[in-house]
């Protein structure tokens, strides 16, 4: 049995070596189109600090680099501390732009991304008041996964103030009417098209992402671009959403994100199989 245990540990080592070899940041040349810096942004990520995520705030930064994202918003559930921590870490290591934020969870009424805020936005107020609060702090307000079951709080006043709404969210791939539901919400009032992954650790960060046409590669540039609705998003079936004036540039954006359908390289397969076999062996023998 000792030999079997050694073999199990060996398999885990093989899994770690092959997996780590291919676990590298995805570096792309900066892209400028129509005089704007185009930045790939995920506006909706959660860390393991009180927000039921599985990556640490600094882990989110490293994961963003591997997914070829230029910026992420770290959006704690009704709190902002993990976003601030991630931002400090990213600045220290020269990582992607981190926008501090919060996902305002007003259960049963609305979920809202407050990106670019430093103080907590109270979830007990109405959506319109919460947006006021976000704007006072210089941030932007995005309707998070506004499916019909959590959209009751988005009244006409709130919609007029809203900066953006998620048109691509992983759930659209899991529910038959998901994409249509988000389209219906977006049609209620002109808002910036936003794609974000609501990343909690399982799945791929940036699987839904927003291409932001910013005047500068900075947090301010990104927030200003969303306010001006200069965004492009690929939804279900790679359908394109966003500013019609930017449609001529869409082809240049295709292929910049990792494939949603790829099951990985041969190294990834070896890593996966060896990991599961090795751990099962270690557990049982």
């Amino acid at each position, binding site marked *: *049995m000792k030999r079997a245990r050694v073999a199990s540990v060996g398999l*885990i080592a093989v*899994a*770690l070596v*092959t*997996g*780590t070899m*291919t*676990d590298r940041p995805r570096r792309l040349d900066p892209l400028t189109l129509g005089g704007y810096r185009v930045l790939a942004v995920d506006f909706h990520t959660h860390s*393991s600090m*009180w*927000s*039921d*995520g*599985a*990556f*640490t705030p*600094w*882990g989110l930064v*490293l*994961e963003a680099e*591997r997914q070829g994202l230029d910026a992420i918003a770290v959006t*704690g*559930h*009704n*709190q902002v501390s993990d976003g601030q921590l991630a931002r400090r870490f990213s600045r220290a290591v020269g990582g992607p732009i981190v926008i501090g934020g919060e996902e305002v*969870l*007003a*259960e*049963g009424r609305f979920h809202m991304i407050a990106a670019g805020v430093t103080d907590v936005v109270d*979830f007990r107020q109405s959506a319109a008041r919460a947006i006021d609060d976000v704007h006072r702090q210089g941030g932007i307000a995005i309707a998070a996964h506004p499916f019909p079951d959590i959209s009751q709080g988005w009244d006409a006043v709130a919609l007029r103030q809203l900066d953006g709404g998620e048109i691509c969210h*992983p*759930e*659209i*791939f*899991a*529910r038959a009417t998901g994409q249509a539901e988000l389209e219906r919400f977006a049609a209620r009032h002109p808002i910036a098209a936003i794609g974000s992954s609501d990343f909690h*650790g*399982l*799945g*791929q*960060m940036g*699987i839904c992402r927003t291409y932001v046409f910013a005047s500068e590669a900075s947090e301010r540039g990104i927030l200003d671009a969303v306010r001006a609705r200069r965004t492009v998003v690929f939804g279900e079936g790679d359908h394109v959403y966003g500013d019609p004036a930017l449609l001529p540039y869409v082809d240049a954006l295709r292929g910049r994100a*990792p*494939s*949603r*359908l*790829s*099951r*990985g390289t041969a190294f*990834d397969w070896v*890593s*996966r199989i*060896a*990991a*599961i076999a090795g*751990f099962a062996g270690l*557990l*049982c*023998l």
Partner: protein
Amino acid sequence: MTGWSPEVRVLRHPAATFRELAASPDRGRWMLVRRPLLLLFAMGMLLSLHSSGRLSVRAVADGMVSFAFLPACEILAVGVVYWRGDRRLRFARVVDAFFTSHAPWLLWIVGFCLWRFTESPLQASALSATAIRITTATLLVPAVWSAYLDLHFFRVVMPRRAGRAMTDLLLQRAIGWTGALGYFFGIAAWAQLVAWVRG
């Protein structure tokens, strides 16, 4: 059964396995961390495989840090129960035996990894409502099974009478799980509670 690990043996013969563990040679402070580390490695593996489709040192280490609160809460809870009664065994040994009964959870992780290991990033990111319901329902199996094993643990290792073992199990779960779930869901749980109270 002698060739199998204690994690496998405890599933079939919990009382005998706990007696054996309680009588096994003491390996010092290593016993305090080795099984909690195995649990953390499993959590790191789950995270790494399902976020990137591979086992990388970076993601595993990050998952281990992220979920360190789990064994920390569990050890704290076992510690409270330990200090309330008989302390003839060293605490490190008690912790080691206690984490052996996490075997059903570890098997569940292996099963989940097996079930999902051919998935694409899209499939990993977008679990259907049915898949989420099934996954959540299957969590009941390790939850109940490990509670059954822990009853044996409290009776054999601590050792407690039947009624006291049940009280200790409930106390351990109340402290450990409340702490872990409170940390994990954090401040958002407060919003849920407010919504629930408001109806």
